[in-house]
């Protein structure tokens, strides 16, 4: 009696889990499916889970669309550059907050944590005016350069928590051998925080790749558009017929790098955040 009850409970559990999985992944499935449909099929009533006449027309067309290809390149280019600068500076600052004792550290650390409360949008207006004065509007500078100054308090915090867990004996013996802080940072601390670094890198990548508001404001010309800005122009809000296969093809191609990065890093994210993100 007890076992049948346990088994049926188990079955219900799996039904719920599978159902939730389908719901959560459905938009992705729908995106891929719609990208292979024809225009009539996407606009026709009725449930058509898979295209009746699968076609790669939209893919072929979009690979001949130079605006799309350029925005793809722009996104990869700016994400890489901003990611490198941000990751390096965030790691340096996290090192200062965890491995060195210096007067004022707690005050500066508290200040840094409190910046998490400031919505980035609140800074948008004055920053825009400054970048306008520098003649940086219409260049990649405003969306790349600020990251070099350790943008992202949450990321610093995450790295600091994991760096603080490394035993201090390791640095002490290195210092006795005459190592400098830069050497300890590069040779001892960084190799030991590879997993948190991977998490931070993934979050930063996703953040830059998905970012819409800042590129929208600063880039201004089609030749500089990043994917989110360009893809949003494909959807014509005041038209009644949308080119859904084209839009969904662009959407699929936009999400492919995100998926790749997620599949590579999921091992760290899904377990690592639990260990490093909250505890410590």
């Amino acid at each position: 009696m007890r076992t049948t009850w346990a088994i049926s409970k188990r079955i219900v559990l799996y039904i719920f889990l599978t159902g939730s999985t389908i719901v959560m992944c459905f938009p992705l499935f729908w995106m891929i499916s719609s990208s292979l449909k024809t225009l009539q099929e996407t606009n026709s009533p009725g449930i058509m889970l898979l295209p009746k006449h699968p076609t790669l027309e939209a893919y072929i067309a979009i690979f001949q669309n130079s605006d799309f290809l350029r925005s793809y390149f722009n996104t990869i280019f700016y994400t890489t550059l901003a990611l490198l600068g941000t990751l390096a500076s965030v790691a340096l600052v996290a090192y200062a907050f965890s491995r060195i004792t210096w007067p004022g550290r707690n005050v500066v650390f508290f200040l840094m944590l409190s910046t998490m409360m400031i919505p980035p949008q609140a800074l948008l207006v004055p920053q825009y005016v400054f970048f306008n004065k520098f003649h940086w509007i219409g260049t990649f500078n405003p969306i790349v350069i600020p990251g070099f100054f350790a943008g992202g308090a949450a990321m610093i915090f995450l790295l600091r928590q994991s760096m603080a867990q490394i035993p201090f004996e390791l640095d002490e013996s290195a210092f006795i051998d005459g190592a400098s802080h830069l050497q300890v940072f590069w040779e001892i601390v960084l190799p030991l925080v590879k997993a948190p670094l991977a998490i931070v890198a993934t979050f930063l990548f996703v953040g830059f790749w998905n970012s819409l508001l800042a590129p929208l404001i600063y880039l201004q010309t089609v030749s500089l558009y990043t994917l989110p800005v360009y893809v949003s122009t494909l959807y014509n809000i005041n038209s009644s017929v949308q080119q859904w296969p084209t839009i969904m093809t662009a959407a699929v191609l936009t999400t492919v790098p995100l998926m790749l990065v997620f599949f590579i890093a999921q091992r760290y994210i899904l377990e690592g955040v639990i260990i490093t993100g909250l505890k410590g």
Partner: protein
Amino acid sequence: MPKNPYLNVLAYAIIAVIFIAIASYGLGRLARLISKKMGASSRKQDSTFSGYFFAAPWIIGFLIFVIVPLGYSLYWSFTDYRITANVPINLVGFENYARLILNDTGFRSSIVNTLFLTAVGLPCMIAAALFLAVLLNQKTHGERVFRMAFYLPVILGFNTAVLLCWRLMLNTGTGIINQLIRAISNAFPPFSYLVRGVIFIQELVSGFFLGLNSGRFSLLTRVWEAGFPAANRVPLWVESPLWTKMSVVLLMVWGCGAMMLIFLAGLNNVPRELHDAAEVDGANSWQHFWKITFPLLTPYVFYNLVVGLIAFLQIFEPIYVLYRDNQPLVSSATSMVYYLWQASFRNFQIGYGSAISWLILLLILALTAIQFATQRRWVNYELY
């Protein structure tokens, strides 16, 4: 515009790195000098130098990109500064703030919309995250795959591409979501009553809040007079002002995976002994959850509430992608940040936009402070 934008930004990146290196060294030397003046030991002087040297990128960035802009925007919020006009900046005192709070119905409705989104969306999101976390915590086969599937929406997030996919799915006539609702309703009539009940309640609530925005409750009375929805009614997701915000709530709830991970961490920390003791006392699983697990999870609920509130108050992308320029629909969905964008970057009213920025900032700080002030009443820290 530079001839080659790619080389241009590369050059500036190199300049930025050199600038940071020099400035960091300078800041470190300055800190060492001060600590020497205060008579610190040479070892302490060294660590002062290194500390400020390593932390300098953030300190400099904080000054350049946070403190100075905040100061300027505070000043501009008291002026009539417009970026396009070549006229001198005039101090106007509290005029911007007075206009925003007293006269600007657009801004007022953007606040009501955002608070409505938060009040409806945040509890739904936390409930969904908790539900998924409890499911995953049962230690099943293939847990990793389920975890990945539940977290995936967080990665895809508010990318324009994904938002547009939702736009396609939410189409009233041909969208897959409404098609599925119709199909299930036809096959299983009680589901139809459930859906229509939800539609009715949702439209009444939304109608009431839209009435608060404009001061006219005509939509609400129309919904009320129409009575219980007819058999073939489906949600009008992105087509009716009554539904625009619900579509956004749906999107937010879909992205509850990050909260779910936090709850999973919390569930892992619930001691086994407590459940064993309850087992002996003959508690059922419902009691297990509400009497043991949930009280111990309250710190995690609190964390998710704080983080989620900030996320909700900053919503911009869905509104921009789904409703931008869609008159008259957009006014029913305008969020605070969307309104800020519109005033500052469409109309280039920098003074006015600065005042909006400061009001948003103060609102977020105030609501977060309220959360922290009331946490003692319900958050249980006994375990920690």
